[in-house]
């Protein structure tokens, strides 16, 4: 038998060793855990943390790299402890994670386990869609303001300026300025949005939004919202969240391991923010306004507190959410009630200082603004001037925590609506992964048994290649940190079938060659050679189909295609190159009379 190139055997060995190492992390057990960071003071010494740990009888505590990791045996215990921490007055940030007992030498070479999809792990899936109407409305408002400026600056006198639906209609007395105005407007927006109205005899200009400008705004809103959502999700303390843009105007958010979808939902879609305004009039005025339904004091607006009591507020906003730089939750030292500690930007701080200086003894209100709801959460007398940092009370702990997350992450560029929501329970996930695994093992066992009975030694070689193939697929999925879903497992199943097929094709060819009276070694050579074009044609065709699915498909189809693409490549490698190396090691230099096939 002609010598098989040494470098090929060498390549196979190297690929196998690397794959084996990178697939290793998947075999270490993982535990639900809570991570508590403690930068300065040691959390172990922290009384509150210590109390909680003692009360809940948490035994598995790992202390490393300024982090305290509490290990649990199940998610129920984990969530119980998490709630206890939330209700406590703990200062250190803490998050829900999954802890793997992976040795540090593995993590130092970036070997991590593969991600498991929601269907395997449990969790929440959201699909958020940007509110197109809102974007159009805002865009039109901007255009309105700018257009008015242009008209006034150039002294184009108009008779009326109307906004109807998604259109602006400007009427003029005559057509003197019309063309000039149209040019100026289009020039300033760099877009052909203004046209002369030809449908009526009136001298008017129509301004309508171009699809391109709406698309542009949606794109920029989506990418901004993605950043904001990511920081919100990080604050929720979910391990390995997945945030992806889908299509033109949607964002997918997947939060594995999260069970409480209501909170996530509230935080993801929320446009909540704060406003600070001065009050107007006296409490007497406030009640009179409530009775009459209209504000009795000039330039004021009627607001309501949480207990439905009326308050008159100035129409002027002193500081809004955009001016808040940072927000944290804690407890008010005097009353021991939950509080949000707010830090303003320099601009906000100077405005706040000016206002409070002039209004000592007056009242200031904090308003919670969300979509169409405005609610006064706190009214307090200004006792002294303040600027950058202060605290707000009047919320419960949960609200305070959620609000500070929202203030820290900033307001969404455009509101988003949740159009799809799925919750997968962890028990379903657990059952799925277990039955999926078991059925896979059993199926593989049957295939292996059959191959051994049918092809003897060559069958054993094919089985070794099959195991190697699976290890390579797992390691590639782990290296790219791809997400393994149920349909992904299905893709692996198909790959296993095709890998076996490649070996069957080769072995059947070798058998044919032996039948034709060729020597064992010659049969091996020509068997591999002749089967190669068949295998490659068959695999490449399937690969083409898989790539088509990968680029077009979404969700389950995509998950299937990813593993199929990886699987086809690795199965071609193991079943052609890999088995060839093994066969040549066994039969090379030996003048065998018969093959065990």
């Amino acid at each position, binding site marked *: 038998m002609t010598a098989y190139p040494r470098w090929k055997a060498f390549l196979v060995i190297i690929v196998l060793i690397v794959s084996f190492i990178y697939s290793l992390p998947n075999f270490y057990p993982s535990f639900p855990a809570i991570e508590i960071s403690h930068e300065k003071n040691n959390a172990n010494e922290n009384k509150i943390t210590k109390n909680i740990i003692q009360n809940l009888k948490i035994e598995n505590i790992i202390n490393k790299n300024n982090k305290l990791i509490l290990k649990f045996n199940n998610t129920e215990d984990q969530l119980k402890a998490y709630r206890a921490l939330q209700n406590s007055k703990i200062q250190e940030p803490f998050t829900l994670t999954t802890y793997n007992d992976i040795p540090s030498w593995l993590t130092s070479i970036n070997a991590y386990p593969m991600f498991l999809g929601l269907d395997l792990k449990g969790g929440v899936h959201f699909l958020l869609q940007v509110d197109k109407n809102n974007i159009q409305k805002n865009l039109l408002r901007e255009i309105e303001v700018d257009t008015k400026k242009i008209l006034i600056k150039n002294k184009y006198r108009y008779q009326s300026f109307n906004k109807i639906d998604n259109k602006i209609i400007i009427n003029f007395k005559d057509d003197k300025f019309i063309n000039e105005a149209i040019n100026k407007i289009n020039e300033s927006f760099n877009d052909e949005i203004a046209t002369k109205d030809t449908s009526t005899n009136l001298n008017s200009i129509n301004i309508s939004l171009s699809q391109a400008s709406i698309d542009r705004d949606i794109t920029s809103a989506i990418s901004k919202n993605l950043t904001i959502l990511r920081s919100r999700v990080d604050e929720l303390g979910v391990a390995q969240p997945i945030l992806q843009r889908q299509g033109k105007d949607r964002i997918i958010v997947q939060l594995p391991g999260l069970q409480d979808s209501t909170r996530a939902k509230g935080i993801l879609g929320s446009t909540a923010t704060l406003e600070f305004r001065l009050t107007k009039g006296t409490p007497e005025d406030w009640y009179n306004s409530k009775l009459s339904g209209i504000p009795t004091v000039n330039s004021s607006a009627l607001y309501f507190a949480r207990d439905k009591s009326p308050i008159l507020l100035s129409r002027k906003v002193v500081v809004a959410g955009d001016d808040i730089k940072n927000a944290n939750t804690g407890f008010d030292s005097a009353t021991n009630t939950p509080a949000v500690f707010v830090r303003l930007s320099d601009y906000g701080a100077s405005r706040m200082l000016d206002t409070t200086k002039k209004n000592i003894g007056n009242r200031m209100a904090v308003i919670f603004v969300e979509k169409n709801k405005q609610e006064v959460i706190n009214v307090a007398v200004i006792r002294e001037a303040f600027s950058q940092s202060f605290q707000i009370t009047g919320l419960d702990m949960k609200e305070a925590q959620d609000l500070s997350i929202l203030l820290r992450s900033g307001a969404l560029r455009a509101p988003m609506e949740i159009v799809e929501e799925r*919750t997968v329970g962890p028990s379903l996930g657990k*059952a799925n992964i277990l039955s999926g695994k078991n059925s896979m093992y059993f199926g593989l066992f049957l295939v292996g048994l059959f191959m051994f009975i049918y092809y003897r030694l060559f069958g054993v070689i094919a089985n070794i290649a099959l195991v190697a193939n699976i290890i390579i697929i797992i390691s590639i999925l782990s290296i790219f940190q791809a997400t393994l879903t149920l349909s992904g497992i299905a893709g692996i199943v198909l790959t296993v079938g095709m890998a076996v*097929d490649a070996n069957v094709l080769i072995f059947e060819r070798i058998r044919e060659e032996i039948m034709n009276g060729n020597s064992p070694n010659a049969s091996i050579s020509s068997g591999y050679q002749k089967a190669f074009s068949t295998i490659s044609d068959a695999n490449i065709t399937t690969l083409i189909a898989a790539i088509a699915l990968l680029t077009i498909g979404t969700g389950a189809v995509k998950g299937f295609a990813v593993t199929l693409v990886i699987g086809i490549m690795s199965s071609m490698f193991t079943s052609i190159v890999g088995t060839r190396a093994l066969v040549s090691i066994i039969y090379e230099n030996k003048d065998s009379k018969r093959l065990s096939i």
Partner: protein
Amino acid sequence: MFKLINTNSNYDFLRKKTIAMIFSLALIILSLGSFVTQGLNWGIDFSSGYIVQLKFNQDLDINNIRNNFIDNGVNDSVIQYFGSNQEIIIKLQEDSNFNEESINNFLINTLQDYSFEIIKLEFVGSQIGSELREKGEWAMLVAILSILIYIGFRFEFLYGIGAIIALIHDVLITLGIFSIFQLQFDLSVLSALLAVIGYSLNDTIVVYDRIRENSTLIHEEDFTKILNVSINQTLSRTIITSLTTLFVLTSLLILGGAAVQYFALAMIIGIFIGTYSSIYIASSSLSFLGVGNKSE
């Protein structure tokens, strides 16, 4: 050597090509008839509504649950066992009266005699459903076209047509069986169908490859003889591969749990049809299309 198929097998597959064609045509007509009359039983992935999975502490009679639902005014829901007879999955059509909270209340009211736990509560909007459907169909069309181009390039254009005929044959009949028996068609079945396309192609190409090889090796005037020889030579491989793949899929069907059962079922049906078509239909269509005539 342990063999399933005699090495010197010499079955005259092509002689039965008329019977095979009639059989396949009958199946296709039956499938198309079923599409028209009852259509597919679209799973929640493709239609809009809520899907609720409940786990009970006792064995259930699903008819009682169905009656409970109808008594409470919901009669367009689909209720099925899921995995065991202690778990059910309920599909509720989208309805403006329903949201997650009202479903919760509805369930508590309707099933007040039972103690149960909600394992899953999903909503799929209609828009998303139709988009998924469109994308799935698109994906399949592009896949078929690119395959046609590749085979045309590697073999001959007519071989490409033959492979596509076999492929459409397999997909249509697999879908037809899902329609006739009103099995749920969800995304996992779509995945399976795509896998069936891959599998069917794989099978067809192995046979075609042999035909191509034999066309140059055997100087035979009768093209059907070349076809028969090629099918016989690849027969044991076709059977063995189908068998090993069926091992994995059958264990997936039996042990894999409810979530993958339709995937496995679709693939098993597809593989039976695919194996049959790669033996009878793929090569019959070559002779039907007139491949090999020009060499005469």
